[in-house]
């Protein structure tokens, strides 16, 4: 979903770089060779990727919260089963991504600690609340739709383990988007109240979803190195435009109206033009002042603390079994 990490400045002091080694590395990347875990790589590449993959993983894990909010209140058994499977997938995506990030030398526990301490970020979109059932439809249709736009090019990312994790993720996202759009169709064809619920959800989520792609290219100076290293294949604005072009007709099929009076089809360019995004809101949410930032962090920390006994019990059980196994041959003698 979530390449917003590529837009933040790397504050760590840059390690002494070796121009010759860097040039060799760049030549491999330019030749579309995949970089694998033990290969030589510039420290800045390792740091950028670690932060990016970790933020992506954190987004999948935090993303379970807004949807988990509706599991017990899903309107039918079919919807409940689908939502449970989807939330489980998000946990799985987090696990694939942590595994990919660990190949760069940072442990999952360290990454988890950075999330819980607030040092690491996750996608801005998960700081918005899921107020009605229609929001679950919107998350599948739009949030996962935006994620797919972002993640398909990541399947060709220069770092092998990240690219391979993305292939698995993309296969599963397609189910997520289709189940979300089906929820939207059911509401749009339902009673006037249901249709209104669908419209209100679109009104709430449309702009935050467009912000998922990150700041406009003119304000995103870090896109350059991510593109040069072939971590990123398209700029923020290119991906946003692809998403708008793909999504607007889907919304019109539902009979819904997008909350943007400037949204018009340009016959010359064959693209949908959209209005000005409120980047002040984006900055506020990323800085921690969105509608749900504090609640999400509180839930994540509580979950980590509440599950401590499970981790302790598993460790104790494994130790006991190991000791028994070691004692066995002696008992047999």
């Amino acid at each position, binding site marked *: 979903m979530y390449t917003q990490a590529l837009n933040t400045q790397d504050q760590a002091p840059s390690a002494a770089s070796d121009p010759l080694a860097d040039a060799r590395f760049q030549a491999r990347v330019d030749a579309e060779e995949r970089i694998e875990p033990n290969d*030589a790589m510039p420290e800045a590449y390792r740091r950028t990727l670690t932060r990016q993959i970790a933020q992506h993983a954190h987004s999948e894990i935090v993303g379970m919260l807004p949807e988990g909010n509706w599991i017990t209140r899903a309107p039918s058994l079919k919807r409940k089963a689908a939502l449970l499977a989807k939330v489980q997938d998000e946990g799985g995506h987090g696990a694939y991504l942590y595994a990919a990030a660990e190949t760069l030398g940072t442990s999952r526990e360290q990454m988890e600690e950075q999330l819980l301490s607030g040092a690491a970020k996750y996608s801005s979109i998960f700081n918005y609340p899921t107020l009605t059932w229609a929001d679950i439809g919107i998350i599948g249709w739009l949030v996962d739709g935006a994620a797919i736009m972002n993640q398909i090019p990541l399947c060709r990312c220069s770092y092998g383990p990240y690219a391979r994790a993305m292939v*698995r993720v993309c296969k599963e996202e397609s189910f997520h988007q289709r189940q979300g759009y089906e929820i939207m169709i059911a509401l749009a064809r339902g009673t006037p109240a249901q249709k209104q619920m669908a419209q209100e959800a679109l009104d709430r989520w449309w702009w935050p979803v467009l912000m998922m792609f990150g700041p406009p290219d003119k304000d995103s100076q870090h896109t350059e190195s991510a593109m040069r290293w072939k971590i990123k294949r398209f700029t923020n604005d290119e991906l946003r435009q692809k998403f708008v072009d793909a999504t607007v007709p889907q919304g019109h099929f539902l009979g819904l109206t997008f909350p943007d009076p400037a949204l018009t089809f340009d016959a010359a360019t064959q693209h949908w033009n959209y209005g000005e995004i409120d980047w002040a809101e984006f900055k506020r949410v990323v800085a921690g002042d969105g509608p749900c930032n504090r609640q999400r962090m509180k839930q994540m920390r509580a979950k980590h603390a509440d599950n401590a006994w499970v981790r302790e019990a598993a*460790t104790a059980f494994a130790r006991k079994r190991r000791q028994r196994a070691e004692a066995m041959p002696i008992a047999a003698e």
Partner: protein
Amino acid sequence: MSDQNWPLWEVFIRTRNGLSHRHVGSVHAVDATMALHAARDTYTRRGEGLSVWVVPSASITASDPADKDMMFEPTASKIYRHPTFYEIPDEVGHM
């Protein structure tokens, strides 16, 4: 104590009989049994496999990518190991 790092396990899955097990990723687990369960939950939610192997990551000895020329160059220079090195007249037909 609960937050100490759990061992890492590499996961290999056979997607169907007739194919070899293939590396798919890794999981953290306290022991082999838990690693198998975690691997099943993480990597086979849609019928991706019929068999799972988990191997402690620490048990894998890997070649160093920096040594790849020394390790693998001889296979490139010994072209006589390939069938196309040998000339067979066209009249003989496919061999």
